[in-house]
């Protein structure tokens, strides 16, 4: 026979406190339901029952605290007030922070700009610049123009000489005629003097050193 855990007896709750309590009650009920459902039958659950009983005893002896609606309401209001206060404080803190930052930026900018006197001079002078022989150009524009021109030139170069085009070297082009003569001749630039430069330099150095060594040993 399943020993049902004795329920905690409750005093009849008043209507106003029903809302909160009701929730708590429902939660308890749900937990109990779970416990109920999970409870194994007969003697195997003997020990857990005992533990439960001990816990329950404390619950049994004391009656739950009596909370009037007024106190709960007051508590809730306090909570709200506290929350509102913290939010306000945070907001003001942020505002102050932003203000300080703005001021700092303005200071920096002011420092960057030239003193007012020179600025005044410049603005008045810019109107009289039209007769001078120089031309004021914004460097940013010039860079943009140069980069576009370079891109355009790269496009032309790619489409005419880039990959996929069937180009050959001038040497091969001029040597075609030589290959078709009745007496075949060598290519126009037959020797490639640009190969193995490092090797040739090393050989030269080695030869020089060897000669010096030979002269020494001969002596």
């Amino acid at each position: 026979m399943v020993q049902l855990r004795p329920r905690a007896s409750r005093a009849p709750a008043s209507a106003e406190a029903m809302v909160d309590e009701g929730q708590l009650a429902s939660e308890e009920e749900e937990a109990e339901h779970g416990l109920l459902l999970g409870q194994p039958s007969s003697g195997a659950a003997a020990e857990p029952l005992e533990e439960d009983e001990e816990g329950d005893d404390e619950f049994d002896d004391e009656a739950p605290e009596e909370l009037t609606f007024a106190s709960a309401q007051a508590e809730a209001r306090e909570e709200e007030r506290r929350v509102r206060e913290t939010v306000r404080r945070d907001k003001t803190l942020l505002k102050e922070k932003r203000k300080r930052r703005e001021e700092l930026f303005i200071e920096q900018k002011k420092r960057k700009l030239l003193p007012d006197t020179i600025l005044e001079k410049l603005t008045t002078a810019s109107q009289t610049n039209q007769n001078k022989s120089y031309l004021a150009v914004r460097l940013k524009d010039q860079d943009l123009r140069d980069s576009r021109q370079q891109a355009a030139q790269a496009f032309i170069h790619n489409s005419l000489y880039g990959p996929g085009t069937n180009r050959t070297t001038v040497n091969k082009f001029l040597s075609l005629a030589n290959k078709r003569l009745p007496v075949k001749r060598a290519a126009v630039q037959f020797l490639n003097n640009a190969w193995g430069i490092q090797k040739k330099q090393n050989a030269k150095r080695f030869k020089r050193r060897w000669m010096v060594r030979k002269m020494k040993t001969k002596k």
Partner: protein
Amino acid sequence: MGEFKVHRVRFFNYVPSGIRCVAYNNQSNRLAVSRTDGTVEIYNLSANYFQEKFFPGHESRATEALCWAEGQRLFSAGLNGEIMEYDLQALNIKYAMDAFGGPIWSMAASPSGSQLLVGCEDGSVKLFQITPDKIQFERNFDRQKSRILSLSWHPSGTHIAAGSIDYISVFDVKSGSAVHKMIVDRQYMGVSKRKCIVWGVAFLSDGTIISVDSAGKVQFWDSATGTLVKSHLIANADVQSIAVADQEDSFVVGTAEGTVFHFQLVPVTSNSSEKQWVRTKPFQHHTHDVRTVAHSPTALISGGTDTHLVFRPLMEKVEVKNYDAALRKITFPHRCLISCSKKRQLLLFQFAHHLELWRLGSTVATDHLLHLKTKGPENIICSCISPCGSWIAYSTVSRFFLYRLNYEHDNISLKRVSKMPAFLRSALQILFSEDSTKLFVASNQGALHIVQLSGGSFKHLHAFQPQSGTVEAMCLLAVSPDGNWLAASGTSAGVHVYNVKQLKLHCTVPAYNFPVTAMAIAPNTNNLVIAHSDQQVFEYSIPDKQYTDWSRTVQKQGFHHLWLQRDTPITHISFHPKRPMHILLHDAYMFCIIDKSLPLPNDKTLLYNPFPPTNESDVIRRRTAHAFKISKIYKPLLFMDLLDERTLVAVERPLDDIIAQLPPPIKKKKFGT
């Protein structure tokens, strides 16, 4: 004639820039040519294809389009995003207007000549109105997705065809909206990963659009329906240019392989009215890409990366079948780029951005003395070295530079004379007097300045203002060896001769309708010898203020027909110090010593007669001896001069050396290689 020792110079590393665009002007029969370094040259086709004007180049100017508008106005546009107008009278650039569309790829003037259309990098087509003194932006057309590489107006001015990458758009001019968008196949009957670039379009008056693209196709489109009518595959490489004749019965295309094809509208059968476009003639006059072609009423003009300018007159269009109908190829410059200091045996070579000074040794050892780089991106217009070798002067568009040279035991030091006056800049021609004390500068405003040089400084003596007649041709200067006379060509009124000591105009040689190509004043006799572009040579006596008797005799008899049929103009004339009867002149393929004491050849005698061997009979020698001693040993000649009585210097530039430094050409597969 005598024997001469010849310094044969081949180390002048002259490489002309490739030709990028040509524009033919029918009214004045002139051709404007723009090169890859930004130089624009104007050739006068009626004056024996002579280069009469040029505008020096600039490093940042990458011209991509050139066109003539009404009233003989020349415009160019390039990758720096600016439209430039050239002032053909004052020989400078009037203004440069930014189109604000990025780099400009193409430009076309409307058939009426009053509007200008440019195609930009950002895909926009901009319309400009040509006002009497400037151009004004009118509006933008619908913006396309990729860059507009070619433009063409319909002859009525109502529609425009614009070629881009992989498609061609047809715009309506009034509304500015794109009416059709025709997609171009990337490869003829095939698939390709490479985008198809439409290099050229042409709009005919019957609504046909002809397009040439990088897949090697020439395609005919119908602009009313926006469909492809016919497609020809003519090359394995790009077809890069197209030009249609005014009568629209023929057009010419140029390919990257160097071939130029001529298409003609021929009737389908011999007596039917239906016509079709047929590829009639291929011409292979170029080795590298033909980037531009033009169609004049009688000839096909082509130019490209191999720097030749080729005129191919069409036999069916030429009325008189004489030497005028032959192929003309312009390779070498029409003015002298070399100056010589005879006393110190120095040669000054002028390049686009630097000057080189060489000393001639004992015909074996030569020294590269100086490599003078110009500051700034502008090209050098002209340069000169004084006969004593201690002054070098050169000029760009905005500045004039004068250097003093000091020689100490084989070392050379250079010092620049600072603070040049503003009126000396943009000089067309610079010349030093024989004793190197005076400098003569012809500026492009028409004024002629005389500057006195002494020690390390200079003093402006006088400026001759332009006389009557506009500054039209390129200016040439000649000074007499005794320093009294200065001759200046360059106005349409004839060659002016000034008295240098008295600083006033002495006389004017009567005007001739062909421009002057070379001038020189003989020592002692002070005869001014002038060579014109139609190969006429005149001799004018300055003290007597009239033509010499010899010159009158030559004019009465006329030159030998082979002399008049030479292709290249005479660029330099010089004299022998001890033999007053000899005139030495040269052009690109021959040099000639005219002996005024010998009889003149008539049309029946042999013009080119090498010196006969001494064991020939006297009769033959007498028959073949005439005044014109021509030698073709050294060619192609860029410069030839007498250093002293026994020595000649000949600067040659073999064509193979130029070709060896050009960009790579398209590969050609030949059978057996």
